[in-house]
């Protein structure tokens, strides 16, 4: 490679018109950037600031800089470690169940030819109900004496005595997972249904003519065609489930024995019940970093597979 040193150096300074052209996109972006700064960047920076301070909210004194002390205390606290485990347990038990059931529902709905909008509207009801209402509904459904679930199980002879669902750690976790799957499944179904409807019909026809049975068509056509939709669903569902507060708080308040004390409830308790805002902020930062990491991995996976497809 050679360089011709006789070529005159081009003046890179833009003229007034060029500068104007160069700046124009930023003018359009400014309102959105301003809003994002106020509603996202400022709270994150403010939260980061709080997380390295001992915040004296009520005592009126100066906040005391404590470095990473809040983080160290949190990571050494059995309550916080337990709440990370509770969050992961809640998310990774709910997610596969909701995905499998959502996929099954989507496949069924995809076959419905008449009145599909009516069925779709009915399907959306759990997703449309406020999480607080959902929480109360399931709390009473799982009630030991008055709950419909025990009543049904007793009636059909599956159990011999009422089960205190929300009073035992393992059954309480199961109960919150059931409620969560019920709430999330419609969203997953709708997303996958949209994906299913975008798969060209001739792919199935060709496979059929080649002698592929229904399972082979599902595993070799449907699933590969849906993988981007599934990745997006998986990403959003993970973020929402790890962040879930209202449903669990209403159903169990984090109990029994802290079995459902997920990270958002721990953040709430540190910050607003114990008024240890610094520690609550540090917990929220840890949660944010975790979710950003998960998102980054997913986005990388999605885009790298897209690039690979494009190259092919």
């Amino acid at each position, binding site marked *: 490679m050679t360089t011709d040193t006789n070529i005159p150096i081009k003046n890179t300074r833009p003229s007034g018109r060029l500068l104007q052209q160069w700046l124009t996109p930023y003018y359009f972006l400014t309102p959105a950037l301003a809003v994002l700064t106020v509603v996202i960047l400022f709270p994150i920076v*403010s939260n980061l600031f709080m997380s390295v301070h001992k915040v004296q*909210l*009520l*005592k*009126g004194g100066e906040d005391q800089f404590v470095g990473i002390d809040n983080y160290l205390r949190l990571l050494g606290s059995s309550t916080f470690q337990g709440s990370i485990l509770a969050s992961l347990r809640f998310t990774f038990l709910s997610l596969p169940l909701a995905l499998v059931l959502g996929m099954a529902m989507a496949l069924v709905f995809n076959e419905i030819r008449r009145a599909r909008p009516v069925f779709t509207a009915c399907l959306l009801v759990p997703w449309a109900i406020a999480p607080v209402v959902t929480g109360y509904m399931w709390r009473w459904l799982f*009630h*030991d*004496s*008055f709950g419909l679930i025990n009543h049904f199980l007793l009636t059909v002879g599956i159990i011999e005595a*009422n089960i*205190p*669902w*929300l*009073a*035992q*750690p393992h059954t*309480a976790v199961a109960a919150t997972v059931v409620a969560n799957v019920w709430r999330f499944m419609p969203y997953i179904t709708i997303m996958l249904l949209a994906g299913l409807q975008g798969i060209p019909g001739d792919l199935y026809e060709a496979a059929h003519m080649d002698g592929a049975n229904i399972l082979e068509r599902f595993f070799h056509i449907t699933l590969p065609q849906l993988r981007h939709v599934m990745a997006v669903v998986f990403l959003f569902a993970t973020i929402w489930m790890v962040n879930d507060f209202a449903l669990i708080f209403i159903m*169990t*308040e*984090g*109990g*029994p*024995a*802290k*079995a459902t*004390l997920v990270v958002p409830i721990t953040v709430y*308790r540190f910050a*607003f*019940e*114990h*008024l240890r805002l610094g520690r609550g902020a540090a917990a929220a930062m840890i949660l944010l970093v975790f979710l950003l990491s998960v998102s980054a991995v997913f986005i990388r996976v999605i885009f790298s597979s897209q690039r690979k497809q494009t190259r092919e």
Partner: protein
Amino acid sequence: MLLALWITVGCGGDRERHIAGQPTRVVVWDFGGVPGHQEWIKGAVKKFNDAREDIEIELEIRDWATQRESLISSTIIGAGPDIIRCHHKYAVEFGELGGLLPMEQFEDWPEVKARIFPNVLEHVKYKGQHYGVPITMLPFVLAVNTDILARYDLEIPTTWEAMLEVGRILKQHDLHAFTMPAGLNLDTAYRFLALLYGAGGRVFNEDWTRAGFNGPAGKAALGFLLRMKNEGYMPAAAAAYAFDENAAHWSTGRAAMSVEGPWWQDTVLGDYDFDTDHLALAQVPIPAVPLEDNVQGTLLDVVMVAITGYTPVAEEAWTVLKALNVDDPVWQQPNPKMGGIPTLLAAYTPGVESPYIDLAQLAESARRGIGWPGHPAITQVQRHIADAVNLVMSGVASPAEALDQAAIEVNEILSDY
């Protein structure tokens, strides 16, 4: 954050209080209150506003559960209501911060003070000054379904040992002797404290530098509850119960007893159609032998009315406070619809009639009542106690393990003060 707090406060306190030619506005935030109380205060405010030309009350009824958040916001901002009706524990937390005015600054405070039960005044006192006027007493008593006990010819138990025996008999008939909320909520801490005080225990040591609830009385009280649960004398699901589930369990005749307060009569009648002819109130059972040297008692909760430290109309607020909460006839006669029993001595003079069931038991419990310690961090302490009780009732820790762990956390909080 300040912007958010200002929005939380609701911008309600910033409007001018004095406007020439108009009556002085006094803003009252009434946290919670049973329906009967709300009905009364609306009527009392209307009556006051109709009768006075110089002062106008602006009443805002707020959710009981939001009082701490609202008070934090308004205290930090220095703007909000002039008068608040809230739990007595905030007398200390917000009195210390200057969020509430000491009553001693009003000339006729000694006359008002003389009309109130002396032991209840201690609940709003901090460093020699009173930061509110206690208006309602809520002693914790044993609420008994007499129909169940009569059916099996049983007496109301007065000791833990007698309670276990009642439990043994009722279990044979598929009934629970006792029920209480033991979920991860503050209702749990309140019921446990009634038992702790009954066993002679205390929340802190004498100089409030260390937790005291993990002493012999606390461990025995929690051990007693655990035994009641393990033997099947109380619902296995209690570890998931909050107030409503517990009330439903008791009111439908599934359990004979619960530790409750003066609100119980109106709650079970109004919300659950319970026939209150079968309701009796008694003292909370205590162990046959006290486990610590302190005086045995029960938990006494108090609702107070206070004047905020940032009010620009302190004298007018004091006038309103007295008119609504001291001089109004409703405080001269104990009324179950008001949610608690009055703190005025006049309400218990001979000849005063009251629809309260077993008012004498309530008054006796109030006399023996001990409040939550007036510590600025008491809400956090309550939360740790509730956690400990829930851990034990969920079967994952022993009383000693759970209470000692909670004590470590509480000691860390206390070391900040």
